[in-house]
């Protein structure tokens, strides 16, 4: 008679429940794929085609070629040409334009002098344009500024030859999609198990189990096993979606990523079990699931880097399973990391799973009394 008694019987029974209720199974498998697609398109910091108006007071060859060069950056989309700076300001205030480029009348002359390499060019100063940027949305503003950046030329500074690793195009999707996979998987897996024990309580079947010699761990782990399989299928399906829809390739080993998903899935399912031992009915289980998963989206490093998080919040984020899975996902998908790069996160997930399973098992005994 041991604590794992009845584990396989419970696992087989849970699979039968899933088979009897194909709608739930299909929803559980489809939700991550659908959410990934929707959120993946919505969360895109690569702002492009910012609406722009041009006030060209010079109307020279030089000013026209400058406008063409702005157009080719892809950051800006030139909507209209206006005749005065005042009109441009009005357009900004109305929200018709986020950026206004005002080219002064002497632009062509100064540009010609600068490129003409005459000694007097420096005395006149380089050609200048006035740029108005709507700063109310800082994501848009930061992107818009990039259209006007040019390398600073200061001969006293050493030349920094920057080599952008892993994500050379600086694409947000490369970084965000792996994180999104973690967040979505957590929501689905926690919800899966948080309902399972509560349902047994509501239907009275828990009473029948409690008079049997079933082991508490047998019941808990038996319930986790089939849902862990679903979780793995979900990992694979969102990775495929990420590749097809967002062109996110796994830089490292896909097999390793799937293997390292297992400790996370078990941790998340155990969190669901813990909720199950607290909630008295399915409505409570749902609310608790949301209560726990929503903040962890913000605190797992998915949106904001952990490095900038204030101390107490950082401590909390260290207790959230998805924080570590985020590091595993980004490590393998973006940086091509191997097991030896990621083992601290794996260890943390195993510790968290053990604690959660132990606490839920102990709490479960209390609910018997």
């Amino acid at each position: 008679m041991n604590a794992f008694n009845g584990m396989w019987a419970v696992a087989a029974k849970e699979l039968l429940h899933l088979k009897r209720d194909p709608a739930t199974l299909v929803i559980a498998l489809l939700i991550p794929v659908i959410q990934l697609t929707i959120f993946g398109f919505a969360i895109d910091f690569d702002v492009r085609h910012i609406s722009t108006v041009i006030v060209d007071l010079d109307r020279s060859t030089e000013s026209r070629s400058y406008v063409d060069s702005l157009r080719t950056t892809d950051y800006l989309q030139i909507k209209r040409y206006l005749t005065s700076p005042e009109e441009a300001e009005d357009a900004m205030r109305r929200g018709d334009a986020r950026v206004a480029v005002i080219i002064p009348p002497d632009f062509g002359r100064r540009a010609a002098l600068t490129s003409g390499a005459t000694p007097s060019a420096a005395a006149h100063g380089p050609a200048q344009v006035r740029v108005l940027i709507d700063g109310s949305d800082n994501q848009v503003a930061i992107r818009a500024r990039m259209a006007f950046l040019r390398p600073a030329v200061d001969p006293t500074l050493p030349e920094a030859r920057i080599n952008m690793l892993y994500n050379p195009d600086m694409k947000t999707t490369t970084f965000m999609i792996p994180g999104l996979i973690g967040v979505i998987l957590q929501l689905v897996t926690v919800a899966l198990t948080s309902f399972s024990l509560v349902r047994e309580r509501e239907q009275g079947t828990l009473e029948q189990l409690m008079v049997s010699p079933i082991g508490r761990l047998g019941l808990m782990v038996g319930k986790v096993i089939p849902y862990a399989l679903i979780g793995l299928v979900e990992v694979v399906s969102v990775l495929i979606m990420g590749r097809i829809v967002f062109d996110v390739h796994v830089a490292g080993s896909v097999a390793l990523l799937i293997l390292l998903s297992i400790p996370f899935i078990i941790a998340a399912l155990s969190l669901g079990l813990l909720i199950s031992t607290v909630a008295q009915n399915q409505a409570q289980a749902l609310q608790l699931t949301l209560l726990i998963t929503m903040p962890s989206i913000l605190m797992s490093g998915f949106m904001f880097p952990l490095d900038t998080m204030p101390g107490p919040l950082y401590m909390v984020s260290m207790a959230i399973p998805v924080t570590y899975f985020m590091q595993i996902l980004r490590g393998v998908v973006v940086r091509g990391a191997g097991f030896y790069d990621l083992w601290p996160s794996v260890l943390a997930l195993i510790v968290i799973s053990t604690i959660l399973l132990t606490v839920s098992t102990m709490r479960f005994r209390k609910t018997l009394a």
Partner: protein
Amino acid sequence: MNAIQINGLTRRFGSFTAVDNLSFNVAKGSIFGFLGPNGSGKSTCIRMLCGLLAPTSGTATVNGYDIVRESEQVKMSIGYMSQAFSLYRDLSVDENLTFFGRVYGLKGDALKKAKEEIVGLVGIGAYMDRRSGELSGGWKQRLALAAALIHGPELVFLDEPTAGIDPVARRDLWDLLFELAGKGKTLFVTTHYMDEAERCSEIGYIYNSKLMVRGTPDELKALPDVSPAGTKRISIGTHTPAASLAALRHQPFTLDATLVESEIHLMTQNETLDEDVLRTMADAGAPGHDPRPIAPSLEDVFVTLTRRLAKQ
């Protein structure tokens, strides 16, 4: 040999004592009827005997195992059937039996044999592939009984097994219980039905957390508290039962009056004359006929005992 031995069993929840110093034995092979009003402590007692709840004080053994120290052995050796259907509604009869068999450690041929045996006993063979949620109330209870028996326990607890099922299914279930008792199994049954209590080989009556009386149905009916010296019970036939009962209820000679089928059961003083009773009824326009002395029924036993205790 006793299947259950209870010695001073007590359970408190805070300041409330749910089970108070209970002591009794249940003989092996008997059908023990555990009776008492709702909230009297029956369920708490069963939960302790099943090893679900630790007693505050006192001891008990079930099938020779201590309910605290050997609760796992207790669980292995008992079956339990609750009043609410507590099997998986979305699983078939076969799947439910397989699951519970496996939980009790049965597998392979042993599981197959145990299922065949129990299916033959309760006669549920025709419904093996039916989802249990789609069964009628009576078949649901038979399935629940089958699941409780799948591992061959010597002792089965049945908590109001016939609540809410039709009379035919009730009779069938009791026939099954008799068959089980005939095979030497001990049955510990709670019920509110008096005809079911009559069928038990022994009855324990719990009231306000205490065991009040215990014995065979005949022993209980002969209790002095139920038929105090100087009283008698008579049955009077009537064609107007409701009016007759109303007429008799508040007479000075009436100690207790109730209606059983179309007869009034009246408890009264020994010296009360049948003619006086009949005259009272006739005067009220609800004539009675053929008065005859009767022994108390089990219902009389429990009603009398409960009223006496409630007054104290």
